[in-house]
């Protein structure tokens, strides 16, 4: 069951030098096309923060402790992962210990009645009716701790979509920890986790969304 709108973003926490993350650097290392680098929409490149967009598929935001790459085009999910893997293959000594593989999915719901039904399934209105006049679900968030594999958790947030009406937005945060932020040395382990888990993370997010919506 495909989402009407979907996106993924990869967040890595570590220690970065934002100034090097420029379109030209990525093109020079053949991680993006040269033309894409030339046409990049750069908001800021600074010692403390860099933000730019490549084509219509990548948004990159890097601060000293956070690397955030995102796309809202399904055709570029693998390209985004390659981009991140490629970047940190070149910068393998970058200390980074925490990874988030996050998905964002928006589903159109047939009608408002069904939309309410989904909300009621997650958070029934009955217990609230004695406390509120017209209770309505604005957001629900659940977490599951990972018991095998890398340390971390999965968080799922469900709320009405602001992009589609009536619609449901389901966001997942698949969080992995290798080292505490101060202990991280290099990022190879984190990249192995990303490489091994990104596909299943997106697949699981889709399954979760399917279970919630149907």
């Amino acid at each position, binding site marked *: 069951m495909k989402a009407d709108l979907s996106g993924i973003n990869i967040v890595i926490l570590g220690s970065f030098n934002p100034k090097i993350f420029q379109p030209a650097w990525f093109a020079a290392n053949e991680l993006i096309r040269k033309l894409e680098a030339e046409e990049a929409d750069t908001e800021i490149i600074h010692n403390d923060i860099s933000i730019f967009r490549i084509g219509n598929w990548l948004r990159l935001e890097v601060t000293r402790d956070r690397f955030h790459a995102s796309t809202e085009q399904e055709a570029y999910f693998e390209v985004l992962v*390659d981009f991140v*893997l*490629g970047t940190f*293959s070149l910068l393998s000594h970058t200390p980074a210990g925490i990874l988030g593989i996050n998905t964002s999915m928006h589903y159109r719901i047939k009608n408002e009645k069904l939309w309410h039904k989904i909300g009621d399934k997650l958070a029934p209105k009955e217990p609230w009716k004695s406390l509120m006049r017209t209770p309505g679900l604005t957001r629900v968030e659940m977490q599951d701790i990972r018991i095998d594999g890398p340390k971390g958790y999965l968080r799922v947030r469900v709320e009405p979509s602001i992009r589609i009406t009536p619609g449901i937005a389901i966001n997942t945060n698949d969080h992995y920890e290798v080292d505490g932020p101060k202990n991280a040395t290099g990022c190879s382990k984190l990249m*192995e986790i*990303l*490489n091994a888990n990104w596909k299943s993370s997106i697949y699981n997010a889709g399954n979760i969304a399917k279970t919630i919506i149907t």
Partner: protein
Amino acid sequence: MLTPPLNEEVEISIFGPGYGECILIHIGFNDWIIIDSCINPSSKEPCAVEYLSNIGVPLDTDVKLIIATHWHDDHIRGIGKIVSTCSNATFVCSDGLLTKEFVTFIKAYGARPGLTEGVNEFDIVLKSLETSHRTPKYASAEKALWKRNGPNGKPPCCITALSPADFAIHLSKIQLKELFPQENTTKRDVVAPQPNNVAVVIWIEVGDIYLLLGSDLENSPDKRHGWAAIVDSNLRPEGIASVFKIPHHGSKNADLPEVWEKMLIKNPLAVMTPFSKGNVSLPTLEDINRIKSQTSEGYITAPPRVKRVKKPKIVEQFVKGATKSIYQANSFFGHARFRADLKSLPIDWKTELFQSATSLNSLKV
């Protein structure tokens, strides 16, 4: 289907295609051999593991030998799981494969983020062997791989490799060297080189039954390797086989009339799997007719070419505009099984065909 063979029964099961093929041999008295591997497209599990589990065969004890006649994922998908599940089986691969250069090649590709296709299965095999402290065995021409000397009333059995010849091993090393990653070159998937110089042809003698499993071996103008080298060898085991796993999907390049004349009985039971690559599909009509002229007991696990499954209109429109041609790569999946009683002479093979498997005589081409 889900009944195991009797103790005194020999069974040959061939599965495919699933990119590649898988052959299971029961040599009597709960001793099993697995040759190569492929994945069942429905269950996504290795056929060998799935089938043997379904008929109640304990994989950790009864599988004695696992032979990989290829090293590329396309032909041995799932073999990693087989090796780790069949924890007491000896793993056999072609001589010349487990060199330092080849294993470095495996490790380089196996470890890199973003590159998992081509040699991942072999990496899994090596890791499994390492963990379980099993030393692999090498196959080369005229080398005995496994023997059962017939204790406790079990008929004797000998499994011999008829290839690769020494010269083929030498050629394969040269071929593989070209695939090794070089510094400052772009990372790419590994595409299986042709021909398969490390193809392992297997000869099995169990009691009075002889089997010739042709793997992917092709003919060569150079008689130092290929089928001619096998037929001409004075060291190959004696006997004539009643079952022939036709090599290289029945292609003309792998057919040598002398094999039919000198190594097989008249009208042997012959079986193969189909193959598709672009607009090439094997066996061709010519191949089928040639094989039918040699035996009336010819079988194939699935028809060679099937009609492509159409996609939604929007997809077909773009595909039509962007391509010169497009074909479905894999045929349907099938399983052909043959069983015979070791004690009854003449040998009477009972044929069972499952899923898309069919006889060549029934094939509509």
